[in-house]
């Protein structure tokens, strides 16, 4: 079995707000294996970005606070590192791609300088070498005329080209882990496909481990080997891609799959999950999905279900998997053809 490069254990992150403590992440456990792409999916507000920013220790504090947990990178707990040691990790061992390429580049600094910053910091390159490497990186991410382009400012690039620049910055120092927080959500559909292809291609070349955060199950099927489904600050189901698409066991996963548009069906069959996610300043005692779950039982609102190991890779937290629960079949709308592979 592959070695874990990253392991998150019982991570809890809260934000102090005027409305009280928002428990954004409530006991997340995750592993990322060397060379794999792990997708984290879930609705808006489920805690995906907070989880990923926690790995980079980029949670603003105040108001953010780590309540408990460990984030082990190659066995060392990142949460215990000094800010200085953490700075050595960021950008060199672990990198991040942000959602919106229109806002994630500094508008008053040339693209070249923004790429070179990390190189100078982590690899002690001089200006000349860093500039040369920046040109190579732009070439690697498929930007034409890189020699001219490094002297330009972000506003001179289109959205797709900017995201390529962001990817170049993230990959500049050959990180072992790349976290991509919805890297294509802000882009046009055609550009999305190009960026995903680029990321897939680069992953093959560099063997970087990737955490890919997305709303889009199509992207998951395309890129990831494993999936973690997040809801209400918790991981409710994990498994490899086949398990999540072909034998999902959690009603929330069923809901997500049903709401996914399918190529071979009309769009009016698209079903959004009714209801809204729980209020994390006053999180439910039991299963976070209970208020929206069509199969909720009395026990669901009272107690959080334990994980049931369905296979070596699939784990699901749902009371339906308890032997005393009634047998429930997944809805047909998730259609096994749901995954376009």
């Amino acid at each position, binding site marked *: 079995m592959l070695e874990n490069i990253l392991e998150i254990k019982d991570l809890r992150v809260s934000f102090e707000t005027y409305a009280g403590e928002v428990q954004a992440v409530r006991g997340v456990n995750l592993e990322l294996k060397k060379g794999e792409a792990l997708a984290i999916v879930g609705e808006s507000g489920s805690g995906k970005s907070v989880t990923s*920013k926690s790995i980079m220790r980029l949670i603003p504090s105040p108001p953010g606070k780590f309540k408990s947990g460990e984030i082990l990178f190659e066995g060392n707990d990142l949460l215990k590192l000094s800010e200085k040691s953490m700075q050595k990790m960021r950008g060199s061992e672990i990198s991040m791609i942000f959602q919106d390429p229109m*806002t994630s580049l500094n508008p008053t600094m040339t693209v070249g300088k923004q790429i070179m910053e*990390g190189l100078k910091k982590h690899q002690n390159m001089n200006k000349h070498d860093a500039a040369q490497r920046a040109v190579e990186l732009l070439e690697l991410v498929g930007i034409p005329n890189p020699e001219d382009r490094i002297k330009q400012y972000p506003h001179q690039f289109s959205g797709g080209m900017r995201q390529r620049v*962001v990817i170049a910055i993230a990959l500049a120092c050959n990180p072992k882990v790349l976290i991509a927080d919805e890297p294509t959500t802000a882009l046009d559909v055609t550009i999305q496909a190009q960026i995903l292809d680029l990321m897939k291609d680069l992953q093959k070349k560099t063997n970087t481990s990737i955490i890919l955060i997305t709303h889009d199950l199509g992207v998951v099927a395309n890129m990831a080997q494993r999936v973690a489904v997040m809801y209400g600050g918790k991981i409710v189901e994990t498994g490899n891609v086949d398990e999540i698409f072909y034998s999902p066991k959690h009603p929330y996963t069923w809901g997500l799959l049903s709401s996914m548009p399918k190529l071979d069906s009309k769009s009016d069959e698209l079903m959004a999950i009714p209801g809204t996610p729980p209020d994390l300043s006053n999180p439910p005692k039991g299963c976070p999905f209970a208020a929206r779950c069509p199969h909720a039982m009395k026990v669901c609102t009272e107690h959080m279900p334990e994980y049931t190991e369905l296979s070596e890779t699939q784990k699901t937290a749902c009371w339906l998997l308890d032997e005393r629960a009634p047998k429930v079949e997944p809805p047909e709308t998730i259609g096994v053809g749901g995954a376009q592979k």
Partner: protein
Amino acid sequence: MVAYILKRILYMLITFFVIVSLSFFAMKLLPGSPYRNAAKLGPELVAQLNHQYGFDKPIPVQYINYLNKVLHGDLGVSFQYEGRTVNSILASKVPVSADLGIEATIIGVLIGIILGAIAALRRGTWLDYGVMVIAVLGISVPSFILAQLMQYYFGVQLRWLPVAKWDGIESHIMPVIALAVGSVAVIARYMRNEMIGVLGSDYIDMARAKGLSRPAVVIKHAMRNSLVPIATIVIPSLMTVITGSLVIENIFAIPGIGDQFVSSIVTNDYPVIMGTTILFSIFFLVGIFLTDLAYGVIDPRIRVAGGDS
């Protein structure tokens, strides 16, 4: 870009013309005699003087004559100081006012930027609240009140600083502070809000995600972007300083234009009043023009607009 600049210059000239005209007619409507001892002079002498200055001509003719002179850079002759041209009076006063204005602006802008940045970086702490209290006070307490308070405590009571005049660095301290406080307040608030916005932006997270140290993130990424809009209020704040100096110079008996302006109003010295107004309006118009250009120089998004992007 060139067309834009030309258009701005044209507007500037039109505005200037309107200001000169308005102040000319306003001056004509003002009551009071320009002559020092009008009562004693007797009607004949007054008539003779009026003839000498051209005041016996119809107002439209006076207006055309005045415009013509202004266009040639001639602001006329003072009523109060015999034989002195307005130009020479202004020229002798400008350096002192410029000194005061520039010192106050530089100090105001620098301290404002630093305080605003500190408040943003320490948002929600007592440092932040302290800066905001200073800012509110600085905006709401008029500079002449602050000037007189300082003059009374530090000048009269404690005798730490000279009460008035403009010689030696000590004499600069109180007037410069009185004038700068307004800019400090405005700029600190502006800078704080700007910087809080910038610190919350994605590219700051991105800069941190590269592993840059905190000072590098703050100085290279946050400060520069926060300064873009600040640069555009430096000149307006210089203009506020100049307006303030009208009163401050008077309080501290500083021999600058403001001091001159107030005494000219008291003595109805029309040519000097008009000349000062014109000088101020030129200054303000050029200031506004430069502010517009400053956007373009500092922010590359505007710099190349219409260029090669």
